[in-house]
């Protein structure tokens, strides 16, 4: 990880055997996110993005720029769980759900506008990989990853 320079745009993709509605629910409702998103209880509505930790500490609070269920969600990102990261500029997260043949959807997450948040950029890069893989496991097997 030492040689990796912070990226201003990061793109992640995963195919998930689930409907667009199921994926949308899993992204927007806290009872789902706490099972794959580092335990964060995240609520995404047209009004805003709110992420809470296990003791209701605020891990993320941003505006929602686009809310188009079950296809597209765009919200701000500020890592409030870490003071050093929280001090950086707000970045942006875009979720895109594209249904494919055979009851499968392609989920794309783009985390960009990271120019003013280099520490956040290197901190979240491994995180998105874990989160999306965990989301896939949860939706395809009905179980979160153990441990």
């Amino acid at each position: 990880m030492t040689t990796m320079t912070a990226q201003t745009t990061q793109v992640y993709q995963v195919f998930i055997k689930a409907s667009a509605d199921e994926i949308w629910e899993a992204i927007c409702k806290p009872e789902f996110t706490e099972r794959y998103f580092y335990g964060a209880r995240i609520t995404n509505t047209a009004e805003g993005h709110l992420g809470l930790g296990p003791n209701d500490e605020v891990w993320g609070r941003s505006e929602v720029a686009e809310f188009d269920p079950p296809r597209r969600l765009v919200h701000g990102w500020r890592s409030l769980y870490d003071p050093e990261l929280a001090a950086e500029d707000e970045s942006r997260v875009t979720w895109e759900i594209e249904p494919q043949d055979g009851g499968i959807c392609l989920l794309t997450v783009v985390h960009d506008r990271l120019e003013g948040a280099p520490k956040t950029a290197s901190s979240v890069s491994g995180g998105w990989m874990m989160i999306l893989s965990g989301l896939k496991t949860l939706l395809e097997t009905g179980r979160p990853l153990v441990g």
Partner: protein
Amino acid sequence: MCPVDDGDLVFKALADPTRRHLLDRLFERDGRTLTELAEDLDMTRFGVMKHLRVLEEAGLVVSRRSGREKHHFLNPVPIRSIHDRWIDKYTEHRVSALSELKTQLEGRA
């Protein structure tokens, strides 16, 4: 083309040293164009393009257009998914072994 759980495509893509090298280059600096990757690898554009296509089919590289340029991004999620599937199997086994032990011990008491 939907490589759902298609570990085959991922393993085939990773079986080639040039393609692993391409992934390493993207890990160092993500979002590079074909031209940038070809310069770095001392390889023809066509050669790099061919390898990138295999990586894209396996879901290990995602390309996005931005204006006239096409940028390539390293997508580590399929590798993580293979890992998760296996770890999950081992964890499941350990959990069931523990619960069996518990049942046995409690049954004896």
